[in-house]
């Protein structure tokens, strides 16, 4: 006798063990309890990390005004000034530029993969994305250092200087290519595999019937995509972008290697910046001598963590919803 589909996924109840199988059932029950404990681990870990950072950053959070921490413009630990604003704005700039550069082509690639590509094309592109996803952050950094930074310096910046001298956020104020733009370009490539695969999966949740209904009345594929598919999966696409942004926010080594690490509030994509993760990476471990320094850095980590947790939770919930949506 085969139990009805789905019965096994709802739990061990409903199954009456035979007397001979009682011992086995007992070990099954014990396993169940131990194992169920396991699944609490991820939640516990998230809480643990947050709590750990909170405790260690408590000294600064309780003595230093939060307002000055978040919006202070000066970072001078030796003078007890811990303004994180330059680092926060740096992070936001680099992430925004990276996401803006990455999203349009990634959306198109994902749409191509799900709507146009044949199986053979797909099996050709998949490994490219897998490889891109497998490349370590530091290698992206090397690439950025030897390719992107010089490219920005020798090509993009002179061009922007000549072509858009009056647009504020394209102003060229510094001589080197270590800039927000370089960081953004490196990030754009780094988050591409994630963006593409998440959007692709979201598109796969749309049933074929819907595409066919539109094609059947003579719509072109692009019309179908634009008018039927995209409105339908928009929440999923937004969630994918937010997920990509949260990945970009926390990226450390690769960005650190190409953005210049100058603690200033950038006003142009050609300015150097100093993102939060770089601040932590460059200074943590050397700060024991100055009181509150350690606490301030962990406070920075906590801020980063909280922003990313919010982004992540929101996008992951939306994506779960999108994937589990029951299509009639």
């Amino acid at each position: 006798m085969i139990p009805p589909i789905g019965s096994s996924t709802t739990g061990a109840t409903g199954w009456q063990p035979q007397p001979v199988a009682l011992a086995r059932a007992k070990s099954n029950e014990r396993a169940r309890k131990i194992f169920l404990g396991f699944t609490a681990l991820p939640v516990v870990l998230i809480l643990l990390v947050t709590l750990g950072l909170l405790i260690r950053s408590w000294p600064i959070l309780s003595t230093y005004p939060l307002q000055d921490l978040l919006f202070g413009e000066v970072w001078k630990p030796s003078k007890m000034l811990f303004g994180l604003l330059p680092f926060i704005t740096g992070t936001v700039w680099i992430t925004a530029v990276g996401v803006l550069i990455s999203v349009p082509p990634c959306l198109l690639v994902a749409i191509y993969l799900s709507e146009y590509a044949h199986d053979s094309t797909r099996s050709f592109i998949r490994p490219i994305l897998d490889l891109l996803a497998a490349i370590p952050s530091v290698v992206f950094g090397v690439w950025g250092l030897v390719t992107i930074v010089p490219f920005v310096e020798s090509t993009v910046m002179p061009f922007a200087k000549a072509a858009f001298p009056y647009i504020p956020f394209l102003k060229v104020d510094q001589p080197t290519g270590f800039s927000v733009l370089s960081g953004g370009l490196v990030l754009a490539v780094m988050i591409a595999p994630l963006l593409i695969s998440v959007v692709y999966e979201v598109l796969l949740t749309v049933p074929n019937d819907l595409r066919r209904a539109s094609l059947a009345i003579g719509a072109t594929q692009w019309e179908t995509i634009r008018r039927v598919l995209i409105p339908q999966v928009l929440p999923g696409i937004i969630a994918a972008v937010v997920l990509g942004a949260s990945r970009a926010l926390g990226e450390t080594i690769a960005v650190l290697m190409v953005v210049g690490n100058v603690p200033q509030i950038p006003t142009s994509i050609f300015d150097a910046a100093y993102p939060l993760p770089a601040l932590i990476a460059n200074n943590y471990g050397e700060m024991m001598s100055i009181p509150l320094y350690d606490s301030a850095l962990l406070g920075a980590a906590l801020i980063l963590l909280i922003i990313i947790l919010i982004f992540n939770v929101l996008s992951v919930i939306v994506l779960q919803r999108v994937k589990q949506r029951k299509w009639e």
Partner: protein
Amino acid sequence: MESHIQVKDLKVSYGKQEVLKNVNLEIPRNRITVIMGPSGCGKTTLLMTMNRFLELNEGVTIAGQVLVDGHNIYSPDVDVTEVRKRVGLLAQRPTPLPMSIFDNVSYGMYIHQMRKETIEYKQAVRHYLELAGLWDEVGKRLHDPATALSIGQQQRLCLARGLAVEPEIILGDEPTSALDPVSSAHIEHKLLELKEKYTTVVVTHTLRQAKRLADHVVFMYLGEVVEQGPAAEVFGNPREERTKQYLQGLF
């Protein structure tokens, strides 16, 4: 009788499996043609060649010709979207687009830019909803999502949506098999009404429905057309042994 669609030497395979073997067919204009045959004999496949839907499946090879008004819709210079505009499809399960009732009906007209003014769209939507026998039920809630309708209503909405792009031919792949008897009768009724103006090709598994609808019958078996002809002949006095057996319910 003048034929509207001609199928000539049509061969279709999925990968290496040949599912249509040299099909030749004549489908008369402004009549209802019913395609029958046991499950898996290639009815859906045949129907999908007529609006160039079959090529949406991966790994399909199609050889031969399908002529609509004497023009081969598989010739390379043909505009697939025009073919699909001319040859409407009523699917097995109703598939309302995820938009309002109004937008569902106007979608095709909008895509093909068939109207200019908003008021024209409004009139046209009303017209086609009436034609599909749905206006009385939804006229007051045109901006509700289409998915809120009952399955039977959804299928009539799909009919209205298809009619709105002014096709000449309506294909139906078991269009009532997902519906309750009343809705099913409703659709049948509509198809009979519409046959004055449209050439209709319907696949069905129910013999009684076939008898109610058919002017012309095509009987298929294992990828071949075994018999085709006027309904009275095929039902009353089938020439082929296999048709006879099928009609007696032996398959």
